[in-house]
């Protein structure tokens, strides 16, 4: 059964996943290598949080 706490955690992880996906989009859209690097760095913690690892 999904309780309120679990629902909140699922929403939070979904948000983290959305941000991680957005970073991938930015990485592939941006022409400036610095913006690409920033997107790559920001991707890491959001991907880990979305996966529930960290």
């Amino acid at each position: 059964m999904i309780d309120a706490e679990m629902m909140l955690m699922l929403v939070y992880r979904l948000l983290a996943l959305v941000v991680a996906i957005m970073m991938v989009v930015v990485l592939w859209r941006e022409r400036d290598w610095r913006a690409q690097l920033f997107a790559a760095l920001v991707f890491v913690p959001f991907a880990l949080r979305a996966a529930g690892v960290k």
Partner: protein
Amino acid sequence: MGTRICFSVFALVVAVFAGWIFRSMREVEPIVAGPGVIEQRMLSAIEPSLANGPGDTPVFELAGTPGGTMLILGGTHPQEIGGVMAAILMVENARVTQGRLIVVPQANRSGFTHTDPMEAYLHRYEIETPAGTRWFRVGMRLTNPAHQWPDPDVFVHQPSLEQMVGHETRNLNRNHPGLARGWLTARVSHALTALAKEAALVLDLHEAQPEYPVINMIVAHENAFETAATASAMLQARRIPIGLSASPKNLHGLSHREFGDHAKVQAILTESANPAMGRFRGRTGEALVVEGRDPNYVRAAALKRLFVGFDERGWPLRLRVARNLASIKEILDAYNDLNPQSPIVVEGIPDYNDVVARGLGAFLQPPPRS
């Protein structure tokens, strides 16, 4: 296109490597049931909602003929390893001839699965035993945010309604007496409060940084003050200086307050000196975590910035654990003197001088064969 591919590969490699490190902290170190353990169960036996989750933790029971019951908690704050190791040494060495001893060495087990971000903490440390190497995790003060998130802006403690900073919602020692239908940390607390209700005496083993005023101290609920004062006096007489402090009545969520108020037990908390937790510390390697040595703290002591003495010998883990074990013995002796109708008689507690001289490895069980 080239930089995009390079950065994509870079991000994936970093994510996989970091993920592997974080996942490795979920590997559980063995705690070996000693000769006095008669039963081992999980906390979920009391609070079924914890079953197979990150808050479920082993509960060891040692018992003899009928008498009183004592509950010992280690790892309420997992990085306070002097308390964790003292609880583990009790599980692996103690024998109860009368009464009952319940030991939970990793009270907040979720907290063992991560460390404080940006603090460069050691993830695990090793202790050599005559039969091989044992390893233990360091962990962090709070429940892992991967297990309980998000934090509220303001944490409102139940039932006192005291307001605290949001992340304290993941601090087990601000959640007592807990909630049956609450967040993970509150449910762990609720189960521990139920265990405390089985006991007459509860001891929660903690550590603090040397610059924190409540250090090398026994903090006692008014229910336990006579026991704690007697124990403190006996420790002073043995040249193991450990002070005494009364549990503040308006500071809620802490074990020494809420177990006394809600479980009606003699609730006591101890604090030993752990330089690996402090803000003055340098590199947080094994020299600091296990040996307790740090030149920054020697300088801080010379500048009179600390509440404990600190020299080149530092505050090694073996000394802190020895002090915790001596405290357990003196608290038990004091309790038995004051409550002769329901004593708790425990043998095999490693002696203070032996632990200091021979180290922790001499008192740990051999590592289990995998």
